[in-house]
């Protein structure tokens, strides 16, 4: 295993009663990355996370975290990991502070003041300092989520495994969680699952897409966004878009052109089969009729939602 790999899985598989929940997952997560783990409901994301933590045993394959085997060195791994479950639950008789103390005692034996100070610091970080002495049983879903994030980082983990960390949070809470994640990346690797694709595009540097237990794609986010099939260019023109469109449609490297009219002219969406030729010739072809002015030109970048849907749809078909 490379030294900068925090998670490295090989053919990791899990079946329940013969039905595959996870099928041959090969995943590599590098140090200090924020790694988004995407997939529709039931894709196998939570199953994969539980296998990494040793909460569940693989049917086949293996997972290594920090170079340690998840099946045999689980306790040593968990010493360096913080985990937030999808629907975090805590002991209802405890307050938030007592919950944090309970979690902290698995890692630290003292001194008391330093442990208390760490607890205070993490509660403050997630905005629960004013509710620290309230029993957890009265907490809303969002407050439980915040407490879950706080307890997951009490031990300064090298790896945070977060299962839908922003799922039950309001927009402000989501923003706070993303900020916390960005802050923590200096010290930790963050491996998180989510279905909020805007968040992924905002903070992640790498993503993996899972569908029906199988890995559909894994790549740095920029690479993934630019890998969605044929390249598309957007050309906004002032003048006569019909002549430009006509000229483009006669080029062998152009596979499709659509026009969106607007008051100042039109935007041509040009799908090309040969990016090199498009880079060289596209502008010249549009300007050739002589009655157009180009006001905007660039390659269209797909957003993550489009990429995600395209990849999942193509995998299913």
């Amino acid at each position, binding site marked *: 295993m490379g030294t900068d790999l925090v998670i490295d899985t090989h053919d990791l598989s899990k079946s329940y009663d013969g039905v595959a929940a996870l099928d041959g997952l090969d995943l590599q997560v590098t140090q200090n990355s924020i790694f988004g783990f995407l997939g529709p409901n039931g894709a196998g994301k939570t199953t994969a996370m539980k296998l990494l933590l040793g909460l569940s045993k693989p049917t086949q394959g293996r997972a290594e975290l920090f170079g340690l085997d998840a099946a045999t060195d689980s306790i040593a791994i968990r010493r360096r990991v913080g985990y937030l479950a999808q629907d975090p639950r805590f002991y209802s008789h405890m307050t938030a502070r007592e919950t944090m103390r309970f979690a902290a005692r698995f*890692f630290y034996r003292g001194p008391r003041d330093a442990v208390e100070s760490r607890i205070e610091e993490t509660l403050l970080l997630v905005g629960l300092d004013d509710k620290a002495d309230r029993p957890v049983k009265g907490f809303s879903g969002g407050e439980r989520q915040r407490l879950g994030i706080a307890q997951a980082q009490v031990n300064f983990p090298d790896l945070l495994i977060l299962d839908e960390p922003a799922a039950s949070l309001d927009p402000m809470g989501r923003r706070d969680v993303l900020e916390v994640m960005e802050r923590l990346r200096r010290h930790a690797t963050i491996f998180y699952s989510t279905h909020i694709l805007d968040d992924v595009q905002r903070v992640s540097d790498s993503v993996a897409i899972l569908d029906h237990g199988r890995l559909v794609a894994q790549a740095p986010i920029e690479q993934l966004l630019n890998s969605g099939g044929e390249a598309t260019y957007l050309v906004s023109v002032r003048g006569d878009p019909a002549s430009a469109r006509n000229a483009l449609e006669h080029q062998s490297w152009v596979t499709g052109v659509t026009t969106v009219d607007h008051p100042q002219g039109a935007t041509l969406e040009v799908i090309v089969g040969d990016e090199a030729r498009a880079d060289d010739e596209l502008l010249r072809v549009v300007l050739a009729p002589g009655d157009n002015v180009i006001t905007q030109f660039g390659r269209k970048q797909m957003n993550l939602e489009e990429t995600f849907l395209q990849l999942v749809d193509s995998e299913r078909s």
Partner: protein
Amino acid sequence: MTAAQTKSPHQPELQAVASRGWSGGFGNLVRKELDQWWGTGAWWIHLLIWTVILIGISTAILIEGQGSAPTELHDEMVQTFILLSGMAIGIGVVITVQGSIVGEKESGTAAWVMSKPVSRQSFVLAKTVAHTLGFWATAIVIPAAIFLVGMRLFVSEPVDVGPFMAGLAVVALVALFYIAFTLMLGTMFSGIGPIAGVGIGFALIGMFFKDMLPQALVRLTPWTLPDLASAIALGSPLPSQWQLPIIATAGWVVVLTAVALLRFGREEL
């Protein structure tokens, strides 16, 4: 691990817990379980219930037997107290402990705890220790102390404390058996229904049907222990091979705990 190695690199003053293998997290989990007994009011509810049952019935016998000879009254009260303790404690344990593991599996707290550097053995053993201490204190030791004080005040025949304590020790073994049994059932089932059914059913068979079963088999169970405990407490002659059910029950505690550890070790959380 040296002192220097146990410091956190982020906050050097924090002292890391040393790695402890199979007992990892045990102390913290026992503390949490004891908190659930002694920090939530659960203990006084238990104490109240057991005191009302045991002392209430003893008081009824005392009132009813006012004209009886002191020795006769003493024997009846001691016998009833010990016998009732030994029989009721099985059902009490099953009712109290049935959700201890299943509840955590269902709610997700077991998965949360096991995401920390905790061994699965610690998770089960901490519950065994805390429930044992809780039951021994609230259902045996404190009601017995109240009973002894009451006997001293209201019955002229004194209780011989040595044999009485020995009888209580046998009752304590019964409690431990049912704790181990119920926890093991908790690792095998995913709902409390089957645990309550099997656990209480087992206790009721011991109360009402043990005489219909082969005695060689019955002596290998805790079913005869309440009778044995009351005989020990009264200093009565003991049956031959009276040690057998005690040794067998202690053996069952070990076997049931081992099965629970093995089963929970394979649990998908």
